[in-house]
């Protein structure tokens, strides 16, 4: 019985590459990982948005309307619905002048109970230290 902890750190702008989208979808897939593991073993994934990566967290992304693809916002919502820990770097939001009300912060409307957390970089650094593996993208 053990739990391995992973932290995905999304530092790239959305859409030009699949990096942030795939970080979220891979992190979410930790929820079905037991089928490959022994009883009681788990992989727990957390995701942090830093630098340009905070742009992934804006709400009202219209990617489906214009390009027929799900938005990054939609994946964030799913991760919150599944009670995953989502951190957004406070200093980077401040640099871009982005306020909390411009961000996707919860999945209330689809029954989620967990909120995204705006945290100082130092807390993300602490998370980086505490996990077993770090996955930057």
């Amino acid at each position: 019985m053990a739990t391995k902890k992973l932290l995905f750190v999304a530092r790239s702008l959305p859409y030009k590459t699949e990096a942030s989208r795939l970080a979220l979808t891979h992190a979410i897939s930790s929820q079905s990982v037991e089928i490959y593991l022994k009883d009681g073993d788990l992989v727990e994934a957390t995701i942090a948005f830093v630098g340009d990566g905070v742009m992934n967290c804006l709400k009202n992304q219209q990617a489906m309307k214009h390009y027929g693809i799900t938005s990054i916002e939609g994946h964030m919502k799913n991760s919150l619905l599944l009670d995953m820990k989502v951190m957004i770097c406070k200093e980077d939001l401040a640099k871009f002048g982005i306020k909390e009300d411009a961000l996707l912060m919860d999945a209330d409307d689809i029954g989620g109970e967990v909120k995204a957390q705006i945290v100082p970089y130092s807390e993300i650094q602490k998370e980086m230290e505490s996990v077993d593996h770090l996955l930057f993208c």
Partner: protein
Amino acid sequence: MGKLTIGCFSSLVGSLSLDFSIKLAEAAVAKGHTVDYWMSGNATMLSKKGQKAFKDYSHLAKPVQTLLATGKFNITACEACAAARGYHKEDTMEGVKSFSMDWYLASTFEADRVLHIGGD
């Protein structure tokens, strides 16, 4: 000896990141380590069979076959990423498996080290 899990998300030709990851796998296996190799995103291009060798383009199909023959190298493509690109069972190189993304996460459980090459 340890286990290294590599996740690669870079496109086949035109980014030497994929070449790096395969050469790193070769070096790790040569030292007796085992390697789980996960292809996602554009890196699933590596799973396509029938890649023709030209001097102008990276040709990684051969080193992948050599790695597979060692028995210390597992390679799996993200099923949906591949299908979105038109790669189905009949398109896939011999020895390459296909699973959903949780395979990668599960692989990290036993891994001593993980290297996530996350974008192009």
